[in-house]
Every structure is written in C-alpha cells, then in structure tokens.
C-alpha cells in the first residue's frame, strides 16, 4: 500500500541541475546550470566524471542558495552504482550527516521525500537531497562495456548523465512541498530487462492512483504530472492503464531529455539523473515563473541487479511521488 504524508511549512530553497552536452539537445537544455563536454567531465574515468558532476551540482547549489555547507542539518543522497559510492564519496567532503538511499531511478524523489519529512517534523531546518547518474558507469555495471558492439533493441532507454540537487527548508519561499507518496515495491512478474519503461509504468500507476485517492484529488487539479523514466513506450502503457489516452499534461522526463523529435535515442532517457535534472531545472524554474501552479513528480525505479537479471528473477519496480505547489508571493 502506498502511503501519503502531507506537510505544512516545507519549502524549496533552491535547486540545481548539471548534465553533459548530449542532454542539452532536448527540452531542458537552456535550464541547466552547467554543461560538460562529455561523460568524463575532464577526468580519467567514468566514475571520476560522475563524482565531478555530483560535486559541482552541490557547489553550484550552495552558491545559488547563498548558504555554506555547515548550515545543512542533514543530507540524503543516492545513485545507481554499487554501494552508492558516488554519493557517499561526495558527502565525505562535507561535514553534514549523510543518509545514503537507493531507489534506482526513483532516488531523486525518494531522497527529496525523506528530506521533506525531516524539515516538516522540525528535526532539521535545512535538508539536502541529491542524486546523479552517468551513461558510462551504468552501462558498465548493468549491461555491457560501452564500446561493445551489441545491437540495442528499440525499447531500450539510455541512462542520462548528470546530477541534480535540491535544498528544502522551513523558511517560507515561493514553492511549497505539499506532500509525498511513498510507493510499494511491486513484483512486475517479468524478467525482461530490455524494456524497463513498460514495467515501471505499473509502479507509476499504483502510486499515482494511491496519491490521488489519499489526497482526494483528480488529474485536472494538476498543471503537470511528470513521470521519471517511462519514456515513449512506458508513457503510452501508463495512459492506457489509467484509461486516459487524451490526457496531455501527463508527460515523461525521459522524452524531455532525449526528445524523440530532435534527439531520438531509442525509447528515451532513464537513470537516477533523468527526473532529477528535468525537475530541478525546468519544473522549479517554471513554478517560480508561475507557468505551473501545481505539479506532481513521479520517480519510477526498477530494483533489479545484474545477478538477479542473469538468474532470471522477477523484477521489482517502485515509484515515489512528490507534490509541489506554487504559493503566493512571499
């Protein structure tokens, strides 16, 4: 059963998103805070490149919010690598207590939800949530070496390379975090790892319906419902499951980053950074500018491992949702 927690007095202070040149060709290019030339970000290995992007995202965020890292009471971070090494390593450069979390591609919403709970319960005045992912490191761990000549199937989604970070606080600002819905890990009853978008649609469906029921809301209450990694195929599957084919404010971050119209990459984008860089740049910006007033972000993740896929075990999927509201001018 998905659980919905509503908050009072939890606000977004500032957010930050960085990515590589490939991610700028879609819809969010102009909203990013820094752009890197390639996956290495000037470093020697893919892992170092991801660490640099994550580190830079935090530094730029602290500058934008005009705070020092010492002001942060608690931090939640995660990524796709084994033992969430990148997030843990970046956190070791700072003094705040660090809670590492793993939700596969839903990590951005999972960490943001947990950070919001801390602020809502007055256990922290300023909480940080961050995540990152990188095509090179993720392919290497979950699939095949990057130069391996395997013919990728059309339903494949490619991991987005970038990092996103967000600060939540009890001090009033324009964007309020109204609630979070934490989803249940759902057995998708399938072992096929080549088409993850469709099976994550099942988790997105369950969390979305639970959220609307728990909050007593409808689709029309929102200006935008943005899902994480469903991409072209998964988004259509979700619309069919909801029986709402005509709903056009239900969009997917994977098709924002790797837009099928001008930068088609198979079915679209996925990865922990996909929803993070889309929402922490464009969505937050548009909320500030009052293009949207009420937004629901649904991060979806597929909780398999390389060994579980080889052993032919069913893939568990999960989705977490965050509700953001534009307040009046403060």
């Amino acid at each position, binding site marked *: 059963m998905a659980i919905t927690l509503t908050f009072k007095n939890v606000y977004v202070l500032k957010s930050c998103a960085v990515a590589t040149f490939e991610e700028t060709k879609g819809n969010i290019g102009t909203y990013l805070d820094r752009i890197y030339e390639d996956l290495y970000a000037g470093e020697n290995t893919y892992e170092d490149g991801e660490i640099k992007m994550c580190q830079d995202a935090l530094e730029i965020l602290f500058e934008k919010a005009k705070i020092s890292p010492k002001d942060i009471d608690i931090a939640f971070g995660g990524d796709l690598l084994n033992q969430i090494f990148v997030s843990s390593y970046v956190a070791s450069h700072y003094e705040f207590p660090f809670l590492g979390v793993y939700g596969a591609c839903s990590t951005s919403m999972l960490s943001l939800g947990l950070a919001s709970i801390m602020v809502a319960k007055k256990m922290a005045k300023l909480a940080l949530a961050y995540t990152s992912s990188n095509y*090179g490191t993720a392919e290497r761990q979950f699939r095949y070496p990057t130069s391996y000549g*395997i013919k990728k199937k059309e339903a494949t989604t490619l991991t987005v390379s970038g990092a996103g970070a967000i600060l939540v606080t009890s001090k009033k600002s324009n964007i309020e975090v109204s609630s979070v819905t934490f989803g249940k890990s759902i057995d998708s009853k399938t072992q096929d790892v080549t088409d993850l978008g469709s099976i994550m649609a099942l988790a997105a469906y369950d969390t979305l319906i639970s959220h609307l029921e728990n909050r007593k809301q409808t689709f029309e209450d929102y200006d935008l419902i943005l899902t994480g990694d469903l991409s072209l195929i998964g988004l259509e599957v979700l619309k069919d499951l909801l029986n709402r084919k005509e709903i056009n404010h239900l969009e997917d971050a994977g098709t924002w980053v790797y837009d099928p119209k001008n930068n088609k990459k198979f079915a679209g984008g996925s990865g922990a950074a996909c929803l993070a860089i889309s929402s922490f740049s464009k969505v937050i910006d548009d909320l500030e500018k009052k293009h949207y007033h009420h937004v629901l972000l649904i991060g979806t993740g597929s909780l398999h491992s390389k060994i579980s896929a080889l052993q032919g075990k069913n893939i568990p999927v999960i989705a977490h949702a965050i509700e953001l509201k534009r307040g009046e001018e403060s």
Partner: protein
Amino acid sequence: MNYFLAFLFSGGICLIGEQLYEHTKLTPGHIVSLFVVIGASLSFFNLYEPLLNLFGGGASTLIMNFGHLLYQSAKEGINEGNYLHIFTNMLTSTSGIITFSTIISFIFALLRKPKV
C-alpha cells in the same frame, strides 16, 4: 564462383543468427556459444570439411570454425598418441586467433580509455 558462395554462406548463417537474436530472448553470448557447439558437432560427423571446401572463406570466418578447429586438433591428438593428447593438442589450431586477439586488445587497452 568461390567468392559468391562464400558471400552466400556467410550471409546466410548471419541471417539465421539475426533472426534468433531478434525473436528470442537469447543474447549474443548465447548465440555465439550455440554456434560453437554446432560447429563442433558438425565437425564430429565429418560434415564441416565439405563446407570448408565448398564455401571457403565463408565458413572459415565464422565462429563455427572455432568449434571445428578445437575438435579437429583434439582428434588429431588422439590419433597420434594416447587419450591425454586430447588436452595437450586442443589449442594447436586456434592458438593463433586467441593469442593475437588477446595481445592486440591488451595493447589497445593500454593506449586509450574508451570513447562513447
């Protein structure tokens, strides 16, 4: 004529492999291993030599040839000596391709990091 037959055979086997890849859940690793087994089996029934004679380069370029060479070397070992030669002789024909690929990959890996 030899060239045309080589083209046909090589292309045909690759076509079969492509159908297997597209329509089943087999990965390239599975398909390649399957073809090695097929190569060794055909070689056991003495059916691979005629293929080589007829199609020439078409049959020798595929990974089936790898299975064929392994079995043939093992068989020669048994014929020349005792059963233990199945182990000492197995890699004689395929030694070239394995060692050459390993060494050239090693050199390339030392030179540069992968580019996407």
